[in-house]
């Protein structure tokens, strides 16, 4: 038990560190998306959805092999979702203990345990018709979203508050580095939804510990099926006096002392946490290898709720998956437009098929430019990442989003290649622009453009020099839109013209399309004649000067 808690805590800590340092690279040489690549559901389903082997998800094989040997050890010991539920759920149970005394009684499942198989069936069936439903229920993406979009930003806000309040102390201590510490907290659009989702999970935690893992988690369901093969199982010795202590501590709500415990179906429910082994005063329980003979189980019929789902409910789930996911392509539920995606994003259909909505790219983006979308790209695109320049712009010297993407939805491109992966084109709204519409001298879009794609030109009929966009030079990074002083930006990045490929080759494709993407400073400098007003030869002052 103690060993398990230590491993669980260490695992959760590692998960958190990987997430915290996602912007800076991995921790201990591990990839920032390590845990996401271990997600059993995503690791199995994603290949089916996109009809292609996704090599980055290979680590999931380790989890499947581990489960086939020892049961749901991953759920009990390593899963950060499980650890977070144990931690936050435990906290919630302590806080609500008086209001809501928990009775962990056996055999009173508020939901059939087979529900998770139905979720799994629906997700698998949708995957077979090429639709991605697993982002709704894959545990590691769910928990990544909680930390990346809600808890880490909250923590950062807290840190800023602490620095502000402690400023006099820090100053006295000479800790000026801390005083000027740059904390980019980041605010994410669907954070409230994610928080609400987790609050529901925590209420369910108060109903039964590990409610999610017992009844709903499709990855847990998948591992439960694999765990039927497990050779290492709980064994009961003859010394058992049926005192019930083991059942009282079991977080999965099982009765480890029951002979049924050895049954393959039950093995799938056990989280191998070993609480029962520690609780037993008669040393009757131990984890040991060896095959269970079917004859030893004869007569002990499977207990209700531990069986597989009924044929009818299974058929319904298998039908529901494709129907639900295909319905998202109809009418008002369908995509309205293609949002501006991260640089190196695959073509839209492939993108939505692969994307786990885990939020790793959003966490890794140093300017929080990648935001989850609501319904902009339809129900099927819910929570998928899109570039929102008003929040932040895409830095030319950064390609972290692709590096942390567990399914290569955003390709991991070296900077030399990423700089060609144009995400869209900035479009000037002349009716809103200070210079075009209001004759004000403003060129904030120009002075912020890292690619030299915006020029300010003197136009007849306009008092102030006006900005124009050179589309061949525009990357769509959004610095112009981010800094436009108008309350509603007068220059907006549109996804039109984005380069979306299923693999490397961005530079070649971009050059073929005639893009001239490079740092503004590398642009050929202006030479004499230095200033030539358009039209007449009469003397006009250079840009920004008065007559």
């Amino acid at each position: 038990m103690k060993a398990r808690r230590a491993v669980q805590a260490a695992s959760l800590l590692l998960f958190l560190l990987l997430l915290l340092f996602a912007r800076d690279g991995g921790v201990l040489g591990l990839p920032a998306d390590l845990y996401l690549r271990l997600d059993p559901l995503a690791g199995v389903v994603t290949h089916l959805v996109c009809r292609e082997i996704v090599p980055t998800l290979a680590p999931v094989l380790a989890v499947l092999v581990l489960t086939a040997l020892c049961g749901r050890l991953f759920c009990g010991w390593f899963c950060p979702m499980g650890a977070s539920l144990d931690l936050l759920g435990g906290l919630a149970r302590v806080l609500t203990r008086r209001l809501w005394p928990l009775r962990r009684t056996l055999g009173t499942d508020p939901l059939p345990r087979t529900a998770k198989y139905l979720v799994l069936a629906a997700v698998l069936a949708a995957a077979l018709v090429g639709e991605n439903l697993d982002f709704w229920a894959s545990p590691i993406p769910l928990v990544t979203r909680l930390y990346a979009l809600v808890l880490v930003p909250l923590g950062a806000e807290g840190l800023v508050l602490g620095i502000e309040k402690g400023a006099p102390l820090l100053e006295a201590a000479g800790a000026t580095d801390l005083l000027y510490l740059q904390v980019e907290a980041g605010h994410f659009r669907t954070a409230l939804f994610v928080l609400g989702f987790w609050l529901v999970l925590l209420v369910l935690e108060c109903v039964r510990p590990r409610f999610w893992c017992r009844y709903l988690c499709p990855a847990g369901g998948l591992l439960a099926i694999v765990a039927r093969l497990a050779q290492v199982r709980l064994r009961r010795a003859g010394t058992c006096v049926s005192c019930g202590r083991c059942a009282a501590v079991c977080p999965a709500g099982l009765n480890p002392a029951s002979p049924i415990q050895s049954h393959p179906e039950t093995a799938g429910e056990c989280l191998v946490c070993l609480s029962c082994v520690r609780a037993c005063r008669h040393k009757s329980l131990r984890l040991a290898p060896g095959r269970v003979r079917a004859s030893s189980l004869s007569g002990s019929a499977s207990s209700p709720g531990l069986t597989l789902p009924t044929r009818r409910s299974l058929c319904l789930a298998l039908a529901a998956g494709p129907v639900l996911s295909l319905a998202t392509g109809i009418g008002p539920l369908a995509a309205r437009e293609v949002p501006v995606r991260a640089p190196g994003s695959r073509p839209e259909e492939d993108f939505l098929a692969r994307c786990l909505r885990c939020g790793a790219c959003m966490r890794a983006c140093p300017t929080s430019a990648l935001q989850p979308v609501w319904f902009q790209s339809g129900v099927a695109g819910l929570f998928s990442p899109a570039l929102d320049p008003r929040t932040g712009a895409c830095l030319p010297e950064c390609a972290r989003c692709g590096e942390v993407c567990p399914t290569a939805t955003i390709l991991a491109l070296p900077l030399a290649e990423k700089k060609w992966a144009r995400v869209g084109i900035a479009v000037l709204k002349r009716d809103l622009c200070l210079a075009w519409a209001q004759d004000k001298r403003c060129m904030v879009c120009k002075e912020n453009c890292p690619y030299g794609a915006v020029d300010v030109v003197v136009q007849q009929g306009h008092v102030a020099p006006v900005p124009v966009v050179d589309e061949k030079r525009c990357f769509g990074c959004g610095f112009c839109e981010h800094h436009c002083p108008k309350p509603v930006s007068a220059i907006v990045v549109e996804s039109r013209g984005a380069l979306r490929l299923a693999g490397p080759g961005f530079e070649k494709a971009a050059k073929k399309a005639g893009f001239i993407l490079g740092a503004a400073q590398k642009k050929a400098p202006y030479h004499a004649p230095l200033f030539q007003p358009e039209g007449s030869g009469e003397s006009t002052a250079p840009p920004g000067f008065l007559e």
Partner: protein
Amino acid sequence: MSFVADVDSAANTHPEVVGELLRMCLEAGASSVRVLDHAFRAGRSSLETSGILASCEGVREGLCHNLTSERHYREITLDGARDMHRNAIMRDVLEADVLIAAPVAKTNSSTGVSLALKGQMGLVLDRGSMHSRYDLDTAIVDLCSRIKPSLAVVDATRVLSTNGPYGPGLVLRPSEVIASPDPVAADAQTVASYTWYGRRVAPRQVGHIALAHARGLGRMDVENLNVQRLVL
């Protein structure tokens, strides 16, 4: 040091000018000196590319910062303002005894040039409203009336003579530094000393300089001022 651009591009003040100023401040007995800007991009990229961070760190560590978070700013009333009556200014600036403006000499397609006066926009949180809500020239003078630099040191070692403020543009190399306790005079002298887009321009042709002169912030009639030339 607002722009991610190297020394040769002349989009930022020369790191040696900043470093030397810093050294002189410390030699003069300043107990606490800060080199600050509100750059376009959060983080240290422009500080590093400009070479200014390394130059400052070479003199004393932990002085050079890019302040983009709200917590470093305090909302104040700009007394005597004509247009922009409120904005948030860097706390460090508001608390400072002496403020030194150290801009590079360059063009700016909004305001003609960007020198000591226009450069003060790097000390406010919300620059956008100066473009959109207020008249830019008036707002610059409103700002400079409240946080007037005690000394302006215009770096004209290189002058970005076209396509400012970011460039790339034609870079002149006069190897000069123009300093004055009157920021308007320093700016006016800079405008009068070099060519802009290949022509001579009078200080009165720069809207905010003319306005600052008219409002008594300083003098742009450099021909009537005592200008000393030192050759080192």
